[in-house]
């Protein structure tokens, strides 16, 4: 039984990570096609990718959209969570539900909806439009994480701060936010990784300035190449770094 459970564990991990491993392995292919057999090790596709201006510009766009939209989603999610956790409003259960609802809607639907709204209101398709889309998908996430982290512990500390003369803004900035910092850091990095990988919203809402996933998609249209594998490996690396960074920061804080 013990052996079987280890085998099962190994299979489960293989199932999850095999595609990524294959992608990374063939990004080092010394040949023109990222398919078996493996013809030898080479950095040349990485060299090509890192010197491709189009890709590098798209990478900059992705980073910009990810950080700005995540910061905005976090700020809004934190404020909403704080309000709904502290103030008893009529229909607060409904308000909470509606805030989390976009999580259950497919990105395609959100993208189509936004596309329609932007066309009607004359907002041009751009990185800004894609950024707004990413705030829409990440706000529920940030809200849910911050809301779950708010306990009586914080509530009592906030009450004490008010008793000692703090105004509402001071309570938020000096007490609530620092006490919630681990949850907020986690929410921010998760949002960054989601925005970083997101394709469909970015594809539909950008036009001339595109994000990295959109640029990769246009690369794929011209056929398979180890270069796309190399880009994929780099994108994956960034996500891994973000997640590890989050774990380290959150664990440090928790201790």
């Amino acid at each position, binding site marked *: 039984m013990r052996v079987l459970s280890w085998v099962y564990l190994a299979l489960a991990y293989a199932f999850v990570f095999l595609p990524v491993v294959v992608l990374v392995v063939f990004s080092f292919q010394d040949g023109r096609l990222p398919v078996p057999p493996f013809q030898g090790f080479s950095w040349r596709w990485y060299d090509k990718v890192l010197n491709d201006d189009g890709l590098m510009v798209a990478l900059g766009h992705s980073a910009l959209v990810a950080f700005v939209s995540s910061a905005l989603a976090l700020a809004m999610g934190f404020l909403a969570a704080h309000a709904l956790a502290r103030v008893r409003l009529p229909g607060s259960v409904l308000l909470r539900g509606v805030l989390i609802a976009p999580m259950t809607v497919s990105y395609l639907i959100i993208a189509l909806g936004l596309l329609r709204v932007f066309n009607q209101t004359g907002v041009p398709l751009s990185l800004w439009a894609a950024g707004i889309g990413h705030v829409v998908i990440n706000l529920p996430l940030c809200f849910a994480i911050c809301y779950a982290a708010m306990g009586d512990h914080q509530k009592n500390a906030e*009450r*004490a701060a008010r*008793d000692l*003369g*703090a105004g509402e803004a001071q309570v938020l900035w000096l007490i609530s936010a620092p*006490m919630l910092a681990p949850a907020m850091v986690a929410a921010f990095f998760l949002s960054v990784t989601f925005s970083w990988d997101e394709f469909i919203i970015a594809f539909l809402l950008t036009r001339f300035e595109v994000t990295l996933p959109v640029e990769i998609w246009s690369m794929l249209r011209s056929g398979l190449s180890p270069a796309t594998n190399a880009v994929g490996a780099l994108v994956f690396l960034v996500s891994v770094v973000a997640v590890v960074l989050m774990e380290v920061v959150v664990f440090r804080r928790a201790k």
Partner: protein
Amino acid sequence: MTANVSIRGVTQRYGGALALDGVSLEIAAGEFVVLLGPSGCGKTTLLNLIGGFSEPVSGQVLIGGRDMAGVSPAQRPTTTVFQDYALFPHMTLADNVGFGLRMRGVGRAARRVQAEEMLALVGLPGRADRRPHELSGGQRQRVALARALAVSPDVLLLDEPLGALDLKLRRAMQDELKAIQRRVGTTFVHVTHDQEEAMAIADRIVVMNAGKVADIGPPREVYLRPKSLFSAAFMGEINQIAVRDGQSALGPMGAGTGVLLVRPESIGLTGGLPLGDCRVEDAAFFGTHVRAHVTPLAAPDLRLTVHLPQATATSPGDVLTLFATDPVMLEA
């Protein structure tokens, strides 16, 4: 630095329930008042009304003669020590204690000096750069006290501050609390359900029950001359003997009709009020006294709890002639 508190006909409701029912109370400047009662009696509700965390449905709260209606906790000359301490975990002790001063615009250096002074006052000198999680429960309570006192409030409110501490630490802290109150001279309003704690620290005890004041007075008076059956029983064990027109099952007692109250330690082998012969049901040695349950021969249905002197040797079945001192008659 200190102010009187005047509570006039205050009523408070939560949902449909009456939490406070027309409570009036005068607290003198510099007084140490303890609100005592079982949970749900309204003592914490009253404290919240003084601190400004809620507003009464009707009635007035005045601090230093000023009506506090519509004044937020931040604007009131009160601070609170909370039961769970509510320290700021991300700040050093100096920043915790100096927080109120920071909100009042005091500069960093001056805050630091005052915070260190306050920490020394509560017995934590030289710990300014520690964080709350490095401290024990008793030490955190001291920091909470220092933080609340740092802004020199006129009235300090304490919401069961010793409730989370073990008994030994609680007894030590209550002596210290009393000493600190004498030193700073601030009016202290302290909530507890522990009558021993109340007697140890209070200038005056306010016994509360079901949203009303059941008794009020110095510890000695509330204990020995209770004005209600509730406060008599809440302050400690008490024997009740029914009296009708000056007559009880044990012979003539008191005057009028009502209940005669006698503390267990006020019953002994000598005294002014004879209780007649009593049979000992059980007896146990309690260190400071011998605690026994006895039944008067004249009234087999009555069971009295008595504390006999330490040296008394008695066992079940013995018949003792007992007397009461300091009986209190509560007229019906």
